[in-house]
C-alpha cells in the first residue's frame, strides 16, 4: 500500500482546460471546466521524481468531456510543456491557443514590434496583454501554475492568468537579438528583440552633443587642473 497526496486541480484560467499525465503509457484526459476544481490522481505513477502532467485548451470541435479527441490523435504542439506538481512552486507554461491560430502565423514577430513602437501615437496596440496569444509568443497562451498546499495532505494546482512574465529581455543595443531556451526537446519559442531606437530629433541630438562635449571638456579641464 502506498500513500499518495491528493491533487486538486483548480481552473481559474478563464477557459476550460484538459489535463493529462506526461507519460507515454497514459491514455486518459481530464476535462476541467473554468471556475471548477477536479481531484486528480496519476494514471501511471512511477517511484521516480518525474511524475509530470501537461495541459491544453479544448480544440474547436471539443465541447465537453464526452467529445474529447483521442490522445494519440493530438498534435504534440497543442500541449503545454510537462510540469512537476509534487513540489511547491510557482511558474508559467504556454499552451497552444485555439483563437487566431494559425491564420496569422504568416505575419512575423517583427510586425508586432513595429506596431508596438508606433503605439505611442496611435492606439493600434496589438499586444494587449503579453500572456495572450500574439505574434510575440508564436500565438501561445501563457498560464500561471501555482503548486501549493494548506495542510500538506492536499496539493492544490491552481491555474490562472499570469500578470507578470518570469523574465523580460531588454535590448539597449542597436543590434537584432534572437533568444530562446537552450537544449530543449519539446516546443521552443524563438523570440526576437528589435534594436533600440533613437528618440531625439536631429536638432535635439546636435544640441545634446554640444552639451555633452562641453561637459567632457570641463571634465578634462578638471582632470588636468586648469
Amino acid at each position, binding site marked *: 500500500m502506498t500513500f499518495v497526496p491528493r491533487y486538486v486541480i483548480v481552473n481559474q484560467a478563464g477557459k476550460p482546460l484538459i489535463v493529462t499525465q506526461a507519460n507515454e503509457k497514459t491514455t486518459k484526459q481530464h476535462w476541467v471546466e473554468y471556475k471548477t476544481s477536479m481531484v486528480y490522481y496519476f494514471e501511471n505513477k512511477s517511484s521516480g521524481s518525474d511524475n509530470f502532467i501537461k495541459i491544453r485548451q479544448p480544440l474547436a470541435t471539443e465541447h465537453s468531456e464526452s467529445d474529447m479527441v483521442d490522445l494519440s490523435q493530438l498534435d504534440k504542439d497543442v500541449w503545454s510543456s510537462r510540469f512537476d506538481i509534487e513540489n511547491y512552486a510557482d511558474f508559467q507554461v504556454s499552451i497552444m491557443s485555439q483563437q487566431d491560430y494559425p491564420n496569422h502565423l504568416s505575419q512575423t514577430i517583427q510586425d508586432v514590434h513595429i506596431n508596438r513602437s508606433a503605439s505611442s501615437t496611435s492606439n493600434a496596440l496589438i499586444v494587449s496583454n503579453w500572456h495572450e496569444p500574439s505574434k510575440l509568443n508564436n500565438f501561445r497562451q501563457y498560464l500561471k501554475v501555482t503548486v501549493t498546499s494548506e495542510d500538506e495532505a492536499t496539493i492544490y494546482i491552481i491555474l490562472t492568468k499570469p*500578470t507578470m512574465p518570469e523574465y523580460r529581455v531588454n535590448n539597449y543595443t542597436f543590434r*537584432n537579438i534572437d533568444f530562446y531556451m537552450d537544449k530543449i526537446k519539446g516546443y521552443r519559442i524563438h523570440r526576437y528583440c528589435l534594436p533600440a531606437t533613437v528618440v531625439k530629433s536631429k536638432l535635439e541630438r546636435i544640441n545634446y552633443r554640444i552639451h555633452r562635449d562641453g561637459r567632457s571638456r570641463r571634465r578634462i579641464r578638471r582632470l588636468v587642473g586648469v
Partner: protein
Amino acid sequence: MTGDQGDESEDSLEYDEDDYEENEIKTTPVPFVWDDQTYDDKKLVLKINGKKQSYDISTIGKKAPFSVDKKQYYIEVISTGYFREVEIRKTPKKDGEVSSRDKFASMIFASLERSNGLDLKAKFLGIGLSVVDFEPKELIYLSIFKISFSIFRETTLIDTGELEDQEELNLNIDNIQIDNMMSLDSPIVFTSEEGLSLNKETPFIQIKVSKSSNEQKQQSNVKIDAIQLKIQTMMLEVDTGIISAIVSIHK
C-alpha cells in the same frame, strides 16, 4: 575617432552605437518564460548576427560579455521586484547605478498585484518650540498647528509591460504662530491673518507636488505634473525689544 562633421550625415537607419547614451534611446522589452520548467539546467541562448551564447539567468548579476564583430556587449540580470530583466548593453552599467524605480520595486518583492505602492498619512496636532535666553527667560514661543503630511507612491505595470510610476506629496500646515513672551503689548509676532479667527477653513501653507514617470518615455524620464504652494495672508509685528533679546543670545 574621426571628425564629428562626418557622422552628422548618417541618419535614422544606421546609428553609431558610441554616439548615443541611454537616455537618448528607446527600447522594446520582450517578455520571456521558460518553455519547459522541468529542466534542472535552464539556460537562455542569445543570438546576435549568427553568433550564439548560452546564459544562466536564474541568478542576478553581471554575466559573461557577448563578443561579436569585434564588439563587446554586456549582459546583466537584474531584479525589478516584478520579474527578472536581462539587459544587453553596449557599455557596462556602473555599480550602484540603480534607478529609484528599481530600488523601490525591489523593496516590494515579487507580488501578484499589478500595482504596488505606498500610501502614508501623518497628522500632528501641533508642535511648540521655545527660545530661551541664558537667564533662563522665555523670549519667543513658536507654535505650529495641525500639520498633515501625506505621501503616495504607486508603480503600475501597464498592459504593454512597461512600468509607470506616480508620486504625490502633500503638506498642509494650518497655522504658524510666533509669540513674543517678553512684552504684553504685542504678544503675537507672527501669525496668519486667518489664524486669529476661530473658524478658519484654509490652511496657512499648502504644498502639493505630484510627478509621474513612464519607462517608455525615456526622453523625459520624470515629469512633474504639479507643484502647488499656497500661503495665506499673514501678519508680522516685531518690536525692538525682542530683536535685541534674540541678538544677545548669539553674543
